């Protein structure tokens, strides 16, 4: 008994060391899961308020590019309004006494604008923190887009803040298709360069050319169809492969990102419910 006690005292530091390492390791393992503890992330109140404070300073330096992007987007939107108005005018006489115009349910969505208060691009698993949360209507699994294109998917939400998994994270795959011929494949980041990602699962019979545009496929319930993802920068195929190895230049520059829009589907619940019942039967 005495020996055992002596032994324990002698190696107490080693035991403490092992204990702490096991705790850290189990935290790492636990964090591999999709949902993580909201309390111990940057959506935690203390941490996010600190980030928000520092962001008020940093944002000042990004104002110029943000303004440029906003004005560009504005003009594009205005052009669209004019075009649509013209279309409505031409359609009016025909629809006078028939059924009134209705949007297809998968296109009923609205945008929630949010500000990026923390963003990394140099890790293998990058995350983005937004300054909007549950009370602003953000829920997990919503898609997030910037002015140029797809940014990522909301992961965790608390009352005032939310954390987004951006395209720049190995854990996420975004289903994309080519604008010109509708072939789809998952886009995944390889962890090397924040400007590029890889597209897999495009069979060799598909005709590609450099600079082809990739957009979201609309198959997942996070993004509507046709939001830009990137351009083909380079593609390779070895004679024995049946799939292309495609390098995609991402549309969004994650270094300068400051304002994003979260996509809120009105019929998200209904779609999920019917998909769930289909799987059950």
């Amino acid at each position, binding site marked *: 008994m005495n020996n055992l006690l002596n032994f324990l005292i002698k190696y*107490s*530091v080693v035991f*403490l*060391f092992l204990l*702490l*390492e096991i*705790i*850290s*390791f*189990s*935290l*790492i393992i*636990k*964090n591999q899961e999709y949902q*993580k*503890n909201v309390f*111990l*992330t*940057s959506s*935690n109140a203390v*941490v996010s308020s*600190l980030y928000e404070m*520092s962001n008020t300073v*940093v944002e000042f330096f990004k104002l110029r590019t943000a303004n440029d992007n906003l004005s560009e987007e504005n003009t594009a939107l205005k052009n669209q309004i004019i075009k649509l108005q013209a279309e409505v005018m031409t359609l009016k006489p025909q629809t006078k006494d028939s059924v009134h115009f209705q949007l297809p349910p998968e296109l009923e969505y609205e945008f929630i604008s949010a500000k990026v208060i923390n963003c*990394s*691009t*140099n*890790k*293998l*698993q990058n*995350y983005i923190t937004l300054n909007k949360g549950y009370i602003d209507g953000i829920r997990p699994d919503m898609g997030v887009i910037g002015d140029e294109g797809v940014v990522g998917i909301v992961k965790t939400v608390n009352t005032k803040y939310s*954390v987004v998994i951006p395209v720049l994270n190995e854990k996420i795959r975004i289903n994309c298709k080519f604008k010109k011929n509708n072939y789809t494949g998952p886009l995944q980041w390889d*962890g*090397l*360069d*924040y400007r590029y990602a890889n597209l897999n699962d495009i069979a060799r019979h598909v005709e590609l050319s450099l600079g082809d545009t990739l957009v979201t496929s609309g198959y997942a319930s996070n993004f509507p169809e046709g939001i830009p993802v990137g351009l083909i920068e380079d593609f390779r195929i070895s004679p024995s492969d049946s799939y292309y190895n495609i390098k995609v230049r991402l549309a969004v520059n994650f*270094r300068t990102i400051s304002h994003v829009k979260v996509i809120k589907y009105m019929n998200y619940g209904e779609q999920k419910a019917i998909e769930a019942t289909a799987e059950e039967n």
Partner: protein
Amino acid sequence: MRLLLKKINMILFLQNIVRFILLVLVQVLVLNNIQFLGFLNPYIYVLFILSLPVKLPRWLSLLLAFVLGLTIDVFSDTMGMHAFATVLVAFVRNNIIKLFTTIDEGNNPTPSFYTFGVGAYVKYVVSIVFIHHFTLFFIEAFSFEHFWILLLKILLSTTVSILIILGIQSLKRK
């Protein structure tokens, strides 16, 4: 005599708390945003563990290292990774100090250029920072898939961290 000792301990205590807060803030607000070439991310908060008094009980330095690592983890959404690396470094620290220096009985210096001598201190910093970065980057990657790129990342980040840490330390007066 005892009062004097107590006073010195108090100063040491406050020094370390201020160092902890400053290093965490600098790391989280400034250095985590340095993304040169997409490769470099210096982690200088290790300086806190490097500068703990030599004769500090080992259990205390382990606990402090765990708290430090966890704080950095919470700020950078990397649950447990930094904590793992810092605890490991705190554990091997005493052995590395013994390897490079001889500390007189009854002395309890804070590691620096003046107490260790330039050569020994540089060796001490280099080995600790390298162990820390090596563990951290491999834990983060969790595989040996991109081994050489990862090693390049580790070496570059380690070099920059060491330069920054030695720079900070050389500014300090005796």
